[in-house]
């Protein structure tokens, strides 16, 4: 497997604040990688260094084999960047904007196909100012992918979305990932990371405190489970390392159906909150 992004010992300081305090990271080509962390944890700084927007104090960074500290036009045409907030080109229509940006790239996709892909075909003739927040964000994604990037950066892409818009957006990102685009996503929505990412890294106070598959992160899959049920009109629960045995015992006790049975492991949120509270 080839490496799309390789980071070693990355640091960045703003005055007295150590924004990034030594990050190592490997992101494989073709994977969806989510960087989680609270506001101010340093995730945006780290990503903006990878995108070539900011300089670093120390460390090695290689993105598609190029040092983003010295970005070239050729390299820029191989990556796509979807920034956190933008309200530019408000008076241009969706189609005009996507067509215009297509002209920047040597291997641009067909603008109408991209507009279709982000689900804005029926809004193509509308001015961007007239779009809703979610539609506006889709334009941002369209502009991010118009140049057929090998690597797409998405910085908190669904902030301010309603649940339905978020679902639709996830489908769009899933489609892009299926087509082989490497995606680096920052978010503070855990459900988003869980739905989209092959791997996640949790950043707290400028460092990576955990990294791995979102379903097993922080020992989630093997942590103590909580078995809950209802007995004599009262809710009962038991923490256990062996939930299957507990359920079997309960099944015997109730001779069949256990009323209101639930078996839960710590959610990604539980694990995450524990990780960012006590950074290692």
């Amino acid at each position, binding site marked *: 497997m080839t490496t799309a992004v390789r980071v070693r010992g990355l640091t960045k300081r*703003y005055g007295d604040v150590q924004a990034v305090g030594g990050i190592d990271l490997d992101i494989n080509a073709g994977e969806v990688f989510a960087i989680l962390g609270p506001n101010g944890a340093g995730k945006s700084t780290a990503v903006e260094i990878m*995108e*070539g*927007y*900011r300089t670093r104090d120390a460390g090695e960074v290689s993105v598609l084999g190029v040092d983003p500290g010295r970005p070239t*036009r*050729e390299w*820029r*045409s191989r*990556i796509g*960047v979807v*920034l956190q*907030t*933008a*309200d*530019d*080109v*408000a*008076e*241009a229509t969706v189609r*005009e904007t996507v067509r*215009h*940006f297509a*002209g*920047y*790239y*040597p*291997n641009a996709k067909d603008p109408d196909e991209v507009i279709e892909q982000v689900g804005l075909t029926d809004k193509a003739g509308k*001015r961007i100012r007239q779009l809703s927040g979610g539609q506006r964000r889709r334009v941002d994604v369209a*502009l991010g992918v118009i*140049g057929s990037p090998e690597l797409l950066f998405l910085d908190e892409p669904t902030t301010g979305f309603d649940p339905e818009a978020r679902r639709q957006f996830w489908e769009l990102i899933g489609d892009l990932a299926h087509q082989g685009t490497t995606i680096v996503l920052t978010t503070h929505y855990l459900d988003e990371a869980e739905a989209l990412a092959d791997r996640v890294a949790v950043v707290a106070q400028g460092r990576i405190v955990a990294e791995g598959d979102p379903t097993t992160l922080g020992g989630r899959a093997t942590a103590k489970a909580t078995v809950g049920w209802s007995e004599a009109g009262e809710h009962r629960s038991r923490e256990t390392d062996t939930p299957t045995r507990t359920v079997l015992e309960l099944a015997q006790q109730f001779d069949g159906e256990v009323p209101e049975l639930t078996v839960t492991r710590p959610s990604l949120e539980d694990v995450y909150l524990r990780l960012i509270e006590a950074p290692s």
Partner: protein
Amino acid sequence: MSQTATRAPAPPVVRQPSAIQLGLSRAALETKIFFRERDAVIFTFSFPIVLLLIFGSIFADDLEGTGLNVSQLYVAGLIGSAAMTGFQNLGIGIAMDRDDGTLKRLLGTPLPRSSYFVGRALNTLFISFCQVVILLTIGVALFGLQLPSEISTWLTFVWVFVLGVLGSSLLGIAVSSLPRSGKSASAVIAMPFVVLQFISGVFIPVTQLPAWLVNIASVFPLKWMCQGFRSVFLGDAGATLELTNSYELGRVALVLGAWVVGGLLLCLTTFRWKGRRDG
């Protein structure tokens, strides 16, 4: 042909679009967007026209011993203002682009940085040109302005216009880094522009200003642009109205040229692609 069939396939060449072509494409988009913001269009174009109509109507007297009238003086001065529109347009426009994410977005694309400026410059040149055409039309139609008939005079017009637009545009690009945000940009940049218009002979003839104000105005390009345009539209008869009884065209060229060079240096050393909050 058979020889071509045996040739090894050429390696894929990634051809980046040309910077000039992209600059033209930016100019087309900027101009399209400019004309869609109707309130801004109306303001930009009506401001000098309204001023010309007001001043031209209030001061309709003849200027003693020259055969010229005051309104002709205003046409020349307001054309100077129109050529300096770039200062205001770019100063405010780029501050807004920095604030609303345009610059940051462009920085993330393979667009050459020069193409952004080419686009902005052509857009400014076009808007200034439209303003000048409108002012000249009104001047000729309502205030008896005589268009010069000699080619050499038009050549003077062209170099004063081009140097003036370039110099003031570069100055505008440089000052665009001053406002703290896009919202404050119009206040921060419009104020010095209005002051400059009052002390550079656009509304009040330079001969009626105290010497120290003229000295301040002489540092900036607008005074010299107006002087150059007076030489074009008032002709030799008007030279007696100048402080030195001459249009000093050599000096006009020198100061405007210096602003082009100095403005470029200022832009190259102070231009910020990022907003203050972006670090």
